[in-house]
């Protein structure tokens, strides 16, 4: 994995000189991304899924103004099946009953892009999101399923590498804080964890100048 990322970075750095010099005043750029999020609710996710990190996949649209300021809308999705569980005295017991959780974040963020080099544009941003959380499990009555939405905040930062006049690759880290969903019941209440957010490492494929 590390080798792949390193190779990708080298490829980006050696890629064709970017079109940074002739950035338009407004650029609308669609993108897709994949990320791996390390959830803040470590014990909660570990109890149900056996680990506390999982992938999100999504896409969005970014508007860049004068090559420096940007606003971005994105949607992504996490879906994972684990097991209903119980935590007691620090021990986690998985009960073999399938549970599927789905998280769908809609995020709006904006920030500033630094002029580091023609090929590499570091950036930082902040934003807000609306996070939908669904939970279904075998043997549940419909009323026992969960479908809630709550707002959260995020900060992110990363760098965009131009690999072609029309194509860029972004690597970023995002921290999100999503209160109000976890911690009211279930394993998260037992674990005392209230944040559905966490830290995500993300790779973006950006189309546009």
């Amino acid at each position, binding site marked *: 994995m590390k080798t792949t990322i390193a190779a990708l970075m080298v490829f980006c750095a050696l890629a064709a000189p970017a079109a940074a010099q002739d950035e338009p005043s407004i650029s609308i750029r669609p993108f897709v991304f994949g990320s791996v999020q390390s959830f803040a609710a470590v014990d909660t996710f570990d109890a149900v899924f056996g680990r506390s990190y999982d992938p999100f996949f999504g896409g969005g649209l970014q508007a860049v103004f004068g090559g420096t300021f940007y606003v971005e809308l994105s949607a992504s999705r996490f879906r994972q099946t684990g097991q209903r569980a119980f935590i007691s*005295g620090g021990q986690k017991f998985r009960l073999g009953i399938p549970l*599927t*959780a789905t998280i769908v974040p809609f995020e709006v963020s904006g920030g500033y892009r630094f002029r580091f080099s023609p090929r590499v544009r570091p950036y930082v941003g902040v934003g807000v999101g609306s996070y939908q959380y669904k939970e279904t499990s075998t043997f549940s009555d*419909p*009323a*026992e399923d969960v479908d*809630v939405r709550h707002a959260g905040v995020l900060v992110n930062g990363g760098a965009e590498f131009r690999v072609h006049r029309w194509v860029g690759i972004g690597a970023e880290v995002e921290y999100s804080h999503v209160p109000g969903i*976890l911690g009211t019941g279930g394993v*998260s209440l037992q674990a005392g964890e209230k944040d559905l957010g966490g830290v995500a490492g993300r790779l973006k494929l950006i189309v546009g100048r």
Partner: protein
Amino acid sequence: MLRLRVRSAASAVFVAVALVLTLNGQSPTAPSFRIENIGLPAVEETAAIWSEARPGGRVDAIKRAARDTSTANSRTGASGRAYTPGRVIVRFRDDVPVAERRAVARLGSNTAEVSERPSYADFDIVRIDATEDAEAVAAALAARPQVVYAQPAYHVHASMVPNDPNYTTLQWNLPLVDLERAWDIQPDGASTVVVAVLDTGVAYRNATINVNIPAFRNAGVNYPALGPSVVPYAGAPQLIGANGANASRIVAPFDILSNGTNPPLDLEGHGTHVSGTIGQLTNDNIGEAGIAFNVKLMPVKVLGSFWDVKFGFAPFEGGSDDDVARGLHYAADNGAKVINMSLGSSGPSNCASAPSTPGCSPTIEAAIRYAIGKGAFVVVAGGNEFEDVDPDFGANPTSVLAEIASRIPGAVSVAAVDPQKNRAFYSSTGAYIELAAPGGTSRGFGRGGFIFQQTFDFNFTDTFDPTVVPPSQYRAPRFDVLANIGIVGTSMAAPHVSGIAALLMQQGITDPAAIEDALEKSAQDIGTPGRDPSFGFGLVDARNALRGLGLTR
């Protein structure tokens, strides 16, 4: 014929302190006995209607109520079947593209949306407005050429509704703890878990008891010596199967009272009844159901009964702290993962702070801790003395063993409720009560208040009791006639918790303290909100416990 055994609450839980009977008129000849390993199969009596039974009575009403809660989000269609409103199951032809599927769905209902295909499904869910007639929408969609089939999301009943005939008519207690839906989750019946029953023994095998029955005096009546007698004994078919077909579920039976010399045969019926609640054979079209119906049972005899004394098997009725402590060690050392103790004793209430106070039982406390340390979950009856006034310990005296259990993670004390989830009139109260379970009542519910399981027909065993058999007809007991017997007491409540604990172990929670935690956190909070002296954390709920927790609910 159905027999009811109406016992006082106090007699349902055995007193573990030594109670030496005065044997007026006892024959000077010491009893002698020989137990042969052969015997005829049991005579199984089938149920008949008790004279006080009321058609459509409370048992049925409670079952209906229990089932109604599981179909809260339902609507009954013109077909008569209940379904989940707001959705239709549709199987489109494979060659129909997604966009066309949406268009076809709209032809069935203006509000139709094809939602995400569920996992493990080859069909789609079409969401419609919850007020719409899903059967009509399904019929409209099924008529489209792009659709293979369409139907509402009809409800199905729990797959595990036992066919045992008395389950639906007598066993209000099992639906009360939501056991049907628990069996759906854990249909195996805890086949890998061993539950030890520390009690009067269990009718776990056939035998013939050759014994010299002496004269004695009981209830003011002098009973003559019967001399050498042959007492037939049969294992309960609802525990070991017809002709012992399921006898392999009995593991490591042991009689503490004789240090293993005698087999731990139940000469009272209490231990057999308790074992039935834990694990009576189920779904076999006979008698009643048990909770963990495939569990392995370990009979550990720590209590003597009337006939044990007369046969010379035990020095007195009941048991003593050392017997119980040894039973706990034996069970834990031989692989029991749940230990049921439907026994108790009144004592002081300050044993926690002053364990050397006369009347406290530090030996049993140490033994319970030992058993838990070996991975066994311990269940103790909460006591039947609510209406009693003990000359030493006052009204509603503390049940010493239950109080011990309340202080040890991995052991629980269990109170009893009646069919309406009220505290049973006899059920002791106190800060030491941790959970409640159905124990039944002999007041106000007739037959429908009792806990029924297969055990000995007391008309054939309690020949010493003038209220059962006229003294003029006194005869040697028979322990080979088994019937469906109703008893009440916290002795009956405790095995509900033991059975559910066994299912929970099979489900994956193996630590005794965690099992206690799960049972308490998943209990139905009845009575005063929060933990209270009557119900503890509440009525044990099998389905909630086995289902565990999701991330948020």
